[in-house]
């Protein structure tokens, strides 16, 4: 499996939240944008949009910052995944992330982050605008 990088262009984003919807369905079993592993912030009054999403850095500072055995694992596609049963919620990974893309899962104390949906990157697949793109490297 090739490694995958994510690139974003907030200028193209239309704020439809389809990325959050498909992400949350895949990871929580229901459509629930606030529990997606990425976040769209749109301000309809100023026109400002930002996209918070893991870029899958090489090497990943989150992974390097995590001191809890088994709480983070790197998949074959280069995506770092959090094991919620091991994560203590200490936040070291979130502090280390330059994109603020490691989110506190609303359901509990653990953190959660994009795991690239086993390489499928549903957010990029479903984005109607190409505002989120997944590129194999």
């Amino acid at each position, binding site marked *: 499996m090739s490694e995958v990088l994510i690139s974003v262009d907030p200028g193209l984003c239309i*704020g439809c939240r*389809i990325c959050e919807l498909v992400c949350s369905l895949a990871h929580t079993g229901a459509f629930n944008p606030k529990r997606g592993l990425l976040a769209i912030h749109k301000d309809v009054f100023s026109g400002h949009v930002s996209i918070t999403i893991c870029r899958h850095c090489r090497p990943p500072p989150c992974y390097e910052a995590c001191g809890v055995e088994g709480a983070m694992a790197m998949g074959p596609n280069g995506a770092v995944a959090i094991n919620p049963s091991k994560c203590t919620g200490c936040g070291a990974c979130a502090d280390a992330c330059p994109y603020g893309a490691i989110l506190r899962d609303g359901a509990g104390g653990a953190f959660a982050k994009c795991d690239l949906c086993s390489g499928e990157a549903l957010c990029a697949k479903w984005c109607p605008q190409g505002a989120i793109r997944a590129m194999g490297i």
Partner: protein
Amino acid sequence: MSGPFGWVGRILRIDLTSERIWSEDTGRYSRDYIGGVGIAARILWNEVPPGVRPFDPENKLIFMTGPLTGTAAPSSSRVIIGSKSPSLHPIEHSTRSSVGGDWGPELKYAGYDGLVIEGRAERPVYVSILDGEAEIRSASGLWGLGAFAAQREIARQLGRDVETLCIGPAGENLSRIATIQTQTGRASGHSGFGGVMGSKNLKAIAVWGTGGVGVADPEGFLEACEYARSIMVPHPMGGGAGGLGWTRALPDGRLLRFFSKHRRRYFSCHSCPAACDGFCSVPGVGSGSEKCDGWFYRDYAYDYYGDGSEEGDGAFFYATLAANDLGVDCFELVSMIPWLARMRDRGLIDDGGIGLPLGRIGSREFAEALLRAIALKEGPGRILSEGSARAAEALGVGARELYEALWFAYGQNQHDDVRSYPIVALLWAFDSRDPMIDTHAIRHLVVTRLLWPEPFGLKERERDAICERIFGSADVADHSTYRGKARAAVICQHYSRAFSTLVLCDWTVPIFSSPSARDHMGDPTVMNRLLSAATGLEYGLGDLLLIGERIYNLERAQLVREGRRRGSDALYEYWFSNPDPSGKVIPREEFERAKDEFYAIRGWDPETGIPRPEKLRELGLGDVADEMEKYLRDPGRAPA
């Protein structure tokens, strides 16, 4: 996930008089009516009897989502609003409206499929619904604010990224043409429900939630979403990529020039790839949405200041933003302004008499004077905020005559030409309000298709094939005759109610034709495929259309109880005697014969236009039939 699927299960109820807050089971209604326009119609029938007037505390404001709201179904953001309408004329009938944006989905994430507001708060309030918890809060610092500032202030007070429906000053001051707004350019416009909110002293409803909307078959549902999206109808002002954006082909140079200078980005409603909302910034004016809202002033502004001029851009965009911020219905103004201009030209009104700078229609000053007068009910606004139908009565015979040349019926202004298109005339004749706003599918197919630029334009052969498939005959596209139109109108009405229960956007839903689809052939089964996968209940297209018929009959029963009869299934006289550019008028006899046919197909009494009891029973509306029989024996009695 173990359900519930599609629906989240509860409808929130708030009585602003007693401040009582409770909730009821959506399942009470959803089996027979699904959601949206269906549940709204049922609650209106059950709880809003004839005699209740729009601004009475007893009137209810019903906000209903559907089982697809909050999911990834394409263009599933809209919330249906049902209530007694102050804008309809002469009878203030029960009717419907809808609004997109992000509010409807957020209501479901907050835990509710719908919200019913009744009563009247003693002082201005707003309602917050945060993760299931509803609260009535003071709006003392919000009353008088425009819709934009009010939304921002509420988000600040609640400290969250809430989605808010709110009214501007027009709604507060009980204008009959006031809107309910969200974001900068999304509105429930044409039924005057902003005034109903104002009459309840309710400034806004803010929602926020972290709950989810589950679907029974996630994989099948995403497949249905992908399919629906592949054939959806794009919006001509939209920025959607992947072939959906075709603004460059929009045949309107003035708007294109404006967008090329001032559009900063596109925004979409929740879960919609069409992105019909252009976010624009104009120096010295402000920022916000522009799409079709500004039509009412665009040509006046550029005629006044000159094509492509900065002043023209400014006046046009100012008018759009001000109408949305003050909460005045832009679509009413599409006809109100030409009506004022014609009255001025005839000498029926002048600047001094009406208190508006009528010689400067098109200027920013005129837009400001008119919109502020309406919203604040000052000067000429005392008459004009009542809506043009009532203003025409107040202004006398000449005003009424000119009014009829711009409005079709019920106090609703023209939308497509009832003389040119028999199907349009019939849809208008039987509705309570402008029907073209939730039957864009038929407009795409037989009305506006020629306006669509290549390669999107529908060829005649394709159109006829679609008409055969949907209506069983290509007659519906033959605008020279009323033959086949009554049946087509019935079918259109059922489709309209079907997608408005789910709730899907009537513009993008590809039920008839679509520029994106092969041979431009849409597919109505997208509705039941999405619904079945979402809920886990098997729906066929026939099931949905039957529910559409049930809803249409229930709406009719409500109209009948409010005084509607065959005689008022009518359009203004003007359209029977003044020809369209091709020389056509509505042929009276053919029109009445088509009405006979319509009542016969519907199982309604052709003399009165009242649904027959056996028809209501056949549709599972036995209790409605019983109530109707009692009402017809004694129209004056209070309903049970």
